[in-house]
């Protein structure tokens, strides 16, 4: 029994043990040291380089240049209308003393609680839809509809749904005898309300990606596990979860990057940033400063700090992921 399981795990490792960061480190064939082969490698380098040329050029043109522009702007007093005057680190000094900066940063990080909730639900959903039940296509479509609806329309609808007097949410709660609060106007409930909406909206997206990943898991793995007498939980833990790890990694990274930049939902649900700025996200605050208060230099400075944050967090995640893959041994 034990030996079978070991075999199973080994098999799994060889598939997903491929380190996403470094590429094919585990399974890569040894580099021959012959002269002829390195010429072939040079060829491979060239092809690879050409293949990635397009995104790199796009990046340089459309990301690097504008970003450099705004980095410069963060050291000026630019008001968005006129010339920029260099003021050195003033914006940054002000920024680190700005209580709203910290408040909105806190809010933004708080919103990320929705990520594990959403991913967990999505994975369960994908597993459920993988059972081959009747009407799977219907369910897949229904769960996906929130994703493809325009964010603006969705936010308007949820803003109404959360209305304290007659919103849908409170109507439903009334059925259970609970008197719901005025969700978006109450400091304590506004963030959970927005998290709920964000999870609702993103569920179909994560579900779809998980479904694609699960579908690619060969049935033979599960059959072997059944032979071993593994129960559903064991099958999940030892087969499904490791197999979808690359997708999980992808979803966590992109959700965190996206989560740091949450804006439109806030802007529509709470146009004033919520009571005492309890709903405002960082990018929303940047928007206010840049476009409403004519302080684009300051807004640029905040964005720069935000970018550094995100970059560091992402690099850490990549590093951790690399480490945890080795631990599969």
């Amino acid at each position, binding site marked *: 029994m034990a030996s079978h399981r070991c075999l199973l795990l080994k098999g799994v490792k060889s598939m997903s043990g491929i380190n996403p960061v470094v590429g094919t480190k585990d399974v890569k064939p040894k580099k021959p040291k012959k002269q002829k082969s390195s010429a072939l490698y040079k*060829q491979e380098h060239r092809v690879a380089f*050409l293949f990635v040329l397009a995104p790199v050029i796009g990046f340089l043109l459309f990301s690097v240049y504008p970003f450099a522009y705004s980095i410069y702007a963060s050291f000026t007093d630019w008001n968005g209308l006129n010339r920029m005057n260099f003021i050195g680190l003033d914006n940054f000094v002000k920024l680190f003393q700005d209580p709203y900066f910290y408040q909105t940063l806190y809010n933004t990080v708080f919103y990320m609680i929705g990520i594990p909730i959403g991913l967990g639900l999505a994975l369960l959903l994908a597993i459920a839809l993988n059972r081959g039940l009747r009407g799977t296509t219907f369910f897949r479509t229904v769960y996906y509809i929130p994703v493809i609806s325009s964010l603006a329309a969705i936010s308007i609808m949820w803003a109404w749904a959360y209305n304290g*007097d007659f919103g849908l949410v409170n109507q439903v709660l009334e059925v259970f005898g609970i008197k719901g609060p*005025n969700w978006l106007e*109450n400091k304590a409930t506004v963030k959970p309300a927005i998290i709920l909406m964000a999870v609702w909206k993103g569920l179909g997206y994560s579900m779809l990606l998980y479904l694609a990943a699960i579908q690619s898991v060969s049935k033979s793995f599960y059959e072997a596990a059944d032979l071993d007498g593994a129960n559903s939980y064991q099958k999940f833990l030892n087969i499904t979860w490791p197999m979808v790890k690359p997708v999980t990694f992808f979803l966590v990274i992109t959700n965190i990057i996206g989560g740091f930049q949450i804006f439109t939902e806030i802007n529509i649900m709470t146009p004033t940033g919520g009571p005492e*700025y309890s709903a405002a996200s960082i990018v929303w605050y940047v928007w206010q400063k840049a476009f409403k*208060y004519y302080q684009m230099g300051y807004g640029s400075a905040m964005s720069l700090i935000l970018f550094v944050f995100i970059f560091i967090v992402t690099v850490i995640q990549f590093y951790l992921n690399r480490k945890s893959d080795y631990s599969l041994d």
Partner: protein
Amino acid sequence: MAVQKIIGGVLIMKKLNLLLAILLVSSMFLGACSSKSSGNSDEKEITFMFRGGEDEKTAYTAAIKKFEEQHEGVKVKIINTDADQYSTKLSAAVSGGNVPDVFYLDSGSIANYVDNGIIRDITEDVEKADFDLNSLWQFGVDIYRYDGDTSGKGALYGLPKDVGPFALGYNKDMFEKAGIPIPDKDKAYTWDEFLKVSQDLTQDTDGDGEVDQWASGFNATWSLQSFAYSNGASFLNEAGDKVTVDTPEFAKSLQFFSDLSNKYNTTPNSSQAETLDTYQRWMNGELAFFPVGPWDMSTYAKLDFEYDLMPWPSGDAGKSVAYVGSLGLVVSEMTQYPELATELAIYLSADEEAQQTLLDAQVQIPNLVDMAEEWASDTESVPSNKQEFLDIVQDYGVPYPTFATYNSQWLDEFWTNITPVVQGKKTAEEYLKEIQPKMQKLLDEANEQAKMSK
């Protein structure tokens, strides 16, 4: 051999990609170019950017057609934008050097745009166009004056697209049913009188033990100013450099405002009145008093009850105060056709037919004084006391506190943190004492930025 195959493969791929991209891009270019070179060199094109609903679009399109007929060879390109993101689009246009010739600008931004050299001084152009400024509301004209230091006087930088007096309305049927005399249309309630009437009107009309009718449900952001100013308080001092909310008069007005909800229970008890919330109750006939702007008239025309306008209750200063907003039409400093552009602005602001169309659609009150007075003399149609709108514009209306400041951040600070007060968890005095220094700091910042822009 293999190497050649690989190179060949890669080259083909590159070529395909490139070809596709070129095809697409060139087709777009063709599409783009054709629209640019549509006119001949004799044709002058003026761009007009605005935001608005169907009614405004209709009215302005007609006025523009007339304008084009009057001027041969002149074409007006209309850019209509989403109301919420108008300022974003305008910002982008200004940064990119694509400022439209004529465009909407809110009255509070005039000074900024002038200081940054974006809009044009049209005093002379207006004189040349032989247009009588006195046919427009003086309030509406003066709000677009700026002398480089103070807003409200000096050279003219814009014409009003509209003036929006924020009047107080009441549910006439409710008063009659309750047997309470209708508010006097010339004499404002004192706060004591207002409170008494409010308490009388807050009742349980169907006897089920729950109050289902209230006096009011005001949103502080738009209504507090009236209470404060009519009590002799104000947000700023005359010079515009000191925040004056920590005065006893202001504290009394804010406390009264909050007490209406929390102490006297004359408002619905759902904590914050999101404008749409109490809007609905008003529409349902559950509130006695509610603010009314000219833009509300078309919707309120369908109400189940009769409503009318009255002066806002007045505090110790003895006279009502109401807020008047205004959106303006300005001309770009970089325009190639300054006189034509100004004339277009005049058309949009003062053309009789356009104003009549907007009036009929009940979107705004006319900018032309004569037309407005004639309209107000009709006391038959609802609201009967249309004169109240005019009184506000001519007599007791004031601009929003941020009208003369560089940005609105200092005032937004006030609204952001006011929730505990309006919920009755904090006293007005306490709040005002703590918020004043924060507001002052932001105001100082704004004033400094204003100085640096000049």
